């Protein structure tokens, strides 16, 4: 009888706390958005499912000894998973459009203002006592504006592990929402004439340039910002493997089974941070609001910088490609292309927008290095 009682006490009905129930519903919502609405499904399916698993009452999957906690410690606390993903992303990245037009790097730089403005916003909210974010928290929230999942997770794991769940969810959700968030801002900041600007066809980029470029980045990182070395180093390594053409075996595995495997476990491990205590509080609300702000400011900064560049340089630059500087590869570039086609149905901007798009990845990794150096120091 005791044992029957024990069994009853072990059920979810008996143990479930309201917070856990809500978090399970939130996990289900993420699964719905991922599967039905195609919100970054590759990450949000594992994150959502992990979130549900983490909140099963009494199962303790996200606590010490639980399998999700194990994945978290092994893969995220150590930094390994985001870095391996970044290596895979590097192996999938083509720097060709960037090399054809290196000025687009400035667009990738400008868009990072979203990160720092949001950091300042979080600091202000804390100063006015509305939230209680530390400088490290503020930096981790700001990085959502980098529009780059693995970078967000890496920075959050270093600076604010407690906020990691909310930051990752915000990061991927807003990336999925890029086609909704960006167009109004882009339209507000450009006029019809701006949007019709046609850009020159890109020059051919030789394979040798593509091989040397990741090494150039690596050297500059070594000289200027060692704190960005883990992220940019792994990124450049992946890219070099792809471009050098002598290790195609390794590059193919990196782009396929390796990144897929790590994505599954990264997602589940992030899900382990969606516990009721750390997610169901005012801070998450702040993170969601500030994250949206970060995306919007980044988009605006990119467009404004493109307009400035267009004034300065001889070669015409369509301001619509500025928004692609936030990264969110390749969706932001597609948004640029779509708005370009709306203004002039022969104005294909996709390849031109890929330049600032990958520049945005470099830019936010640089920003991540600075934040880690400054806020953790």
């Amino acid at each position, binding site marked *: 009888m005791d*044992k029957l009682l024990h069994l009853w006490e072990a059920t979810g009905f008996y143990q479930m706390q309201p917070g856990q129930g809500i978090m399970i519903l939130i996990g289900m919502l993420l699964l719905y958005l991922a599967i039905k609405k195609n919100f*970054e499904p590759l990450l949000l399916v594992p994150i959502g499912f992990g979130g549900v698993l983490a909140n099963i009452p009494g199962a303790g999957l996200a606590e010490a000894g639980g399998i999700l906690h194990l994945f978290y410690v092994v893969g995220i606390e150590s930094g390994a998973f985001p870095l391996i993903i970044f290596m895979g992303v590097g192996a*999938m990245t083509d720097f060709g459009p960037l090399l054809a037009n290196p000025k687009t790097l400035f667009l990738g730089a400008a868009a990072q203002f979203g990160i720092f403005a949001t950091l300042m916003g979080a600091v202000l909210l804390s100063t006015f006592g509305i939230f209680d974010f530390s400088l490290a928290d503020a930096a981790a929230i700001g990085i959502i504006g980098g529009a780059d999942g693995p970078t967000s997770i890496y920075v959050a794991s270093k600076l604010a592990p407690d906020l990691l769940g909310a930051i990752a969810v915000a990061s991927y959700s807003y990336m999925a929402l890029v086609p909704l968030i960006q167009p109004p801002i882009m339209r507000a900041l450009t006029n019809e004439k701006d949007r019709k600007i046609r850009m020159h066809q890109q020059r051919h980029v030789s394979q040798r340039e593509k091989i040397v470029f990741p090494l150039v980045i690596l050297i500059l990182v070594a000289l200027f910002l060692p704190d960005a070395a883990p992220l940019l180093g792994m990124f450049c390594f992946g890219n070099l493997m792809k471009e050098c053409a002598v290790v195609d075996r390794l590059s193919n595995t990196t782009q396929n089974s390796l990144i*897929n495997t790590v994505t599954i476990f990264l997602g589940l491990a992030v899900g382990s941070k969606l516990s009721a205590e750390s997610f169901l509080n005012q801070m998450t609300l702040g993170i969601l609001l500030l994250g949206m702000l970060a995306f919007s400011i980044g988009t605006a900064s990119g467009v404004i910088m493109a307009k400035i560049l267009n004034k300065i340089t001889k070669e015409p630059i369509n301001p619509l490609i500025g928004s692609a500087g936030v990264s969110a*590869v390749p969706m932001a570039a597609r948004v640029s292309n779509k708005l370009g086609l709306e203004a002039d149905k022969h104005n294909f901007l*996709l390849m031109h927008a890929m330049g600032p798009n990958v520049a945005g990845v470099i830019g936010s990794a640089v920003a991540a290095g600075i934040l880690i150096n400054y806020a953790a120091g």
Partner: protein
Amino acid sequence: MEKSTLMSEGLTLMVTGMGFVFVFLTVLVLVTTLMSWIITRYEKSVGALPAEGIPAPTAVLGRNQSGQSKQQSQSSQDSTLLTVLSSAVHKYRKNK
């Protein structure tokens, strides 16, 4: 543990365990039947799962489908093949 305790523990575990398995799977039968009934009704009005279930390119992993990447490479061919195949599967199921 004494022998008699072991015996009674084993008996309890057998009875409660087997009981629990049946309770759980009975509930699962009921809920599954309910689920199928709801979905079948729902699909009568909206139709079966539309093609939008097909994976679209995403911000983290889908890059090889974009831009000037090696369209000739195995990996992007695979991924195209996968998309085509899963699209075919979906259409096949829809038409059935």
